């Protein structure tokens, strides 16, 4: 299997060459075009896994692409304009809603219950991938990989993924005023591990568009 990122960094797509019998598992709806590849759809891990994935904002179904005789190619594109990056998973990786694009065999997806503090980060449930193999994640905007050693501060709307060796908490400044008046929440990641952030926040764009919506007429 060979994968290359095309049209990056602003409109990235992933081109995957699959040898005969080689497989890749991708987020439902991400297939753009394919040649000589067989696609099967399933709720990998059963109905519960599918439902749990749906709660995290991913699709319930995952598609498996398998190279036909002689091999084939499949091109995948994420929903948002931005970048794609490859992470090699050994163990676990936590992802923000919608950040998962595809993974190789040997990697499985699940859900991490993040509790109440999750609401301040990527939501009550974060997507969790585990196993051993490559995972491709996508972002709105550019992706930055940060090697955290000690502490690092990130705005909650910009978190794409993080390694489980990192813990996070809401970052409280000494000044209460700062905490109250900041638009988003700042999170403080502690530990040693990798953290991925994106260079734009899709929620900020949604907020920006809001005033352009037509106003409801009063009867």
């Amino acid at each position, binding site marked *: 299997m060979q994968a290359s990122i095309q049209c990056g*960094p602003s409109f990235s797509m992933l081109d995957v060459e699959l040898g005969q019998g080689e497989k890749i598992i991708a987020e439902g709806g991400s297939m753009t075009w394919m040649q000589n590849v067989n696609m099967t759809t399933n709720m990998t891990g059963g109905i519960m896994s599918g439902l749990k994935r749906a709660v995290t904002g991913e699709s319930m179904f995952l598609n498996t692409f398998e190279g036909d005789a002689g091999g084939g190619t499949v091109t995948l594109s994420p929903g948002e304009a931005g970048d794609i990056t490859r992470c090699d998973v050994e163990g676990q990786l936590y992802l923000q809603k919608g950040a998962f694009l595809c993974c190789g065999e040997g990697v499985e997806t699940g859900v991490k219950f993040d509790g109440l503090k999750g609401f301040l980060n990527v939501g009550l449930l974060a997507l969790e991938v585990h196993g051993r193999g490559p995972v491709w994640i996508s972002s709105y905007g550019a992706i930055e990989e940060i090697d955290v050693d000690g502490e*690092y*501060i990130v705005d909650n709307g910009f978190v794409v993924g993080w390694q489980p060796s990192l813990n996070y908490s809401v970052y409280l400044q000494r000044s209460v005023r700062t905490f109250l008046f900041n638009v988003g929440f700042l999170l*403080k990641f502690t530990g040693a591990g990798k953290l991925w952030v994106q*260079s734009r926040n899709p929620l900020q764009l949604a907020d920006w568009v809001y005033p352009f*919506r037509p106003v409801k007429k009063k009867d």
Partner: protein
Amino acid sequence: MNVDILHQGLFATAEVTLAPGEQFVSESGALYRGSPNLNIETSSRALGGGGILSGLKRAMFARESFFMSTYASRDGSPASFGLSPTLPGEMQVVQLDGAVNWICAGGSYVGSGTGVTIDTQYQGLVKGLLGGGNLMFMKTSGTGPMLVSGFGRLIEIEVEGSLTIDNGHLVAFQDSLQFSVTKAAKGWMASFFSGEMFACRFTGKGKLIAQSHSPTAFGGLLGPRLPER
């Protein structure tokens, strides 16, 4: 103080590194990541004074944020942080030299170093309302780096003589330029039917930064396709 533009292109951000004792100011929502020794103070007051009233003026009339954040290093080591604008597009560092002031239009101001004073500048009713709908612009003076962002590409134009620009594409300009609101074509009828109507006309000599796309035009395309609010 070091200001670098990262990912220049559609999703540019700025990375600022501050030596101990240095300060940087930005709109309050612009910070997206920072080193742990970063101290953040948020208030309606920006460097160079101004209280609640100047915050209100910024927010209501200049399409900027009410609150400004001031960043500094908390300990004796350098602090670094990233700033990100809302819309997709490029960013640019403008170095103020103390001689010429820069004026930022329509929410294009992102942040600036110590030594740069920011203030709102009243444009007058006619210029303000017709020239892009902002009664006030952000005026920056002093010395140091100042960050602007745009929707799409940023283009720097050396104006000599005169330049007519659609108000939606105006990002920032040096105040050595005179500015008036005018009709885009020769006659009012032609201006009306051209879809341009009012445009900004700059005369004199100085630099101007324009953006390749107009945010209000984009919002006008998206808005009607969304459910009513």
